[in-house]
């Protein structure tokens, strides 16, 4: 198994830049998510690691060895395609054995290995079937089997659950995660589904417009977003942005918004002009006493919690509160914010201002 280091990797297709100078490290045995909206360059990044695209510049290290210009066959990296790409003219057994045959492995050894992998994935009984008639889940398992059968240094997965229906997806994602924990293999997984990334990933890279926005654990990315894009992309509903004009100086522990003083984590970086007060819906509390008030626009009942949409002087805001709390549309309610979780952003650059909260995460990422 292996550590993968991406260093200043850039990819251009003619005039179009798919990936701009990206750097991050995937540690040995990590389940690593590349997350972003479509067209953000995450798949291109994955394909560059696997060798299906060659970077325009930059280096990729696999276990300390520079591999960015090597053909895929010499990288010992497996790839699971979104549409599975099982060889349609071969049966399941042949599909699974194909990567072994290319290594010149002996017939008996191939058979043992294929049966072992088929056992792990629970597909022994379909080995003789042609791949054409398989269900989505079985195709997925065969595609995984073809990847794990040769014990590669790392796995690349390009939205492997994207072609499955929602119900089966959850089951398969658990299976995948269990498989990873069992094999402990470095896995790079591309997805546009933030929930999938949060559920399965050890670490997440969030990409947007060919740029790496943030890189860290799911908790870090959720609680300490580096940019407004990340804050908006992760979480459902996403982080609330209350825009205001003002200044925060170094060491400040509150901001003044609409005449109200609101506490924030102690700021390390100063900022002025167009600022944004970022707060997650679950960190908003409703109270009659709150000085900062908003008018209830709508409520959505979600079982144990409810989402309340409010109109505040600084923009619309969603709060996730226990469903027992009563809020009627049109009512003006006081709002409270969990001060320790607040992130301030500079509106123009979209970047978070450093504070006690995110200093550790953002200064090394």
């Amino acid at each position, binding site marked *: 198994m292996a550590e993968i280091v991406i260093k200043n990797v850039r990819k251009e297709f003619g005039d179009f830049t798919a990936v701009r100078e990206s750097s991050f490290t995937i540690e040995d045995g990590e389940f690593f998510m590349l997350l972003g909206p479509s067209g953000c360059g995450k798949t291109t990044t994955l394909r560059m690691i696997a060798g299906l695209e060659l970077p325009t510049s930059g280096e990729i290290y696999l276990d300390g060895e520079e591999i960015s210009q090597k053909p895929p066959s010499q990288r010992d990296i497996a790839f699971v395609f979104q*549409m599975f*790409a099982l060889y349609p003219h071969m049966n399941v057994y042949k599909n699974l054995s194909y990567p072994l045959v290319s290594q010149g492995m002996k017939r008996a050894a191939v058979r043992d290995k294929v049966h072992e992998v088929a056992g792990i994935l629970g597909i022994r009984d379909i080995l003789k079937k042609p791949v054409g008639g398989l269900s989505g889940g079985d195709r997925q398992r065969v595609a995984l089997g073809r990847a794990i059968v040769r014990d590669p240094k790392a796995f690349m997965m390009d939205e492997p659950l994207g072609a499955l229906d929602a119900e089966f997806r959850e089951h398969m994602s658990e299976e995948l995660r269990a498989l990873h924990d069992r094999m402990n293999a470095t896995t790079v997984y591309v997805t546009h589904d933030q929930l999938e990334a949060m559920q399965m990933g050890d670490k997440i890279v969030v990409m947007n417009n060919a740029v790496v926005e943030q890189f860290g654990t799911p908790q870090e990315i959720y609680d300490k977003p580096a940019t407004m894009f990340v804050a908006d992309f992760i979480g459902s509903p996403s982080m609330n942005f209350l825009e205001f004009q003002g200044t925060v100086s170094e060491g400040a522990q509150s901001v003044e918004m609409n005449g109200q003083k609101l506490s924030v984590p102690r700021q390390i970086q100063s900022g002025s002009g167009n600022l944004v007060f970022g707060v997650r819906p679950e960190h908003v509390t409703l109270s009659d006493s709150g000085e900062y008030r908003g008018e209830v626009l709508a409520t959505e009942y979600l079982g144990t919690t409810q989402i309340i949409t409010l109109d505040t002087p600084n923009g619309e805001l969603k709060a996730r509160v226990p469903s027992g709390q009563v809020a009627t549309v049109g009512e003006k309610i006081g709002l409270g914010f969990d001060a320790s979780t607040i992130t301030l952003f500079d509106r123009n650059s979209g970047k978070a201002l450093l504070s006690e909260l995110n200093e550790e995460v953002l200064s090394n990422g």
Partner: protein
Amino acid sequence: MSSFSVTEPSKRSKWFAGTLVIVYALITMVPLAWIMLTGFKSPADAISYPPKVLFEPTLEGYVNLFTTRTRQTDEFLAANPPETWYEEIVRQYDMVIAGPSKFGERFLNSVIIGFGSTFLSIFLGTLAAYAFSRFKIPLADDLLFFILSTRMMPPIAVAIPIFLMYRQLGLSDTHLGMILLYTAVNISLAVWLLKGFIDEIPREYEEAALIDGYTRFQAFYKVVLPQAATGIASTAIFCLIFAWNEYAFAVLLTSGTAQTAPPFIPTIIGVGGLDWPAVAAGATIFLLPVMIFTVALRKHLLRGITFGAVRK
């Protein structure tokens, strides 16, 4: 009982469609049947008017097709009684068999040239189509247009330059010359048809093979080719039919060693003029290889023609 499905045709329309197809098939088969029957007629029956539908079948046409004959004196004929059934047929006209005709050779030439050029067209066409489909080729669209443009006038329009060129190069009346010529004519069709088929094969299959440790060529050979089989088969049929039936260039450029069957068959001379049964016999035998080839690849051809019309 009427059918309950909207898409299922009703019984009456099925009947109508079936009848129409059968009538059409019968009409198109009349000339073919005519040729095949004529091959078994005697020369007199073949040219009788009104045409004879019922006649006494004879293998005379086939015997004449495969042999050359000479007239002999009555003494000679009396001294040498016929030894075989085909000798006997020839004796009706006071003739003996002098030797085999050139039909066998000409037929073999057709096979060599027809299948040779088909193979070469498919071989080059597949490689070119793959390259056009998968690689970034500078001016790819212009090159493809250029390849297509070679078919924008009838090939025979350049017969004279080709005739002169072949004479200079020593390619006249050679197998190689004819194979090259038919390949040149067919290659544009092959490239365009095959490019369409290869475009339809997702790249992921090759990428999977690359990841699985194969080289680009192995991926092409082991993964792309089997999936392009349908396209290759239908393209091969089109190429073979053209090369097999081609007449004009064959008349112009071949006369001896490399002469194919089409220019040879009409030259079969019988007793007192054209021997129609022998010509018909030659045409019948000539039809067989393409028929067998087409029937053998029929499944692929049908799938090939409708390929791309319905996406899975």
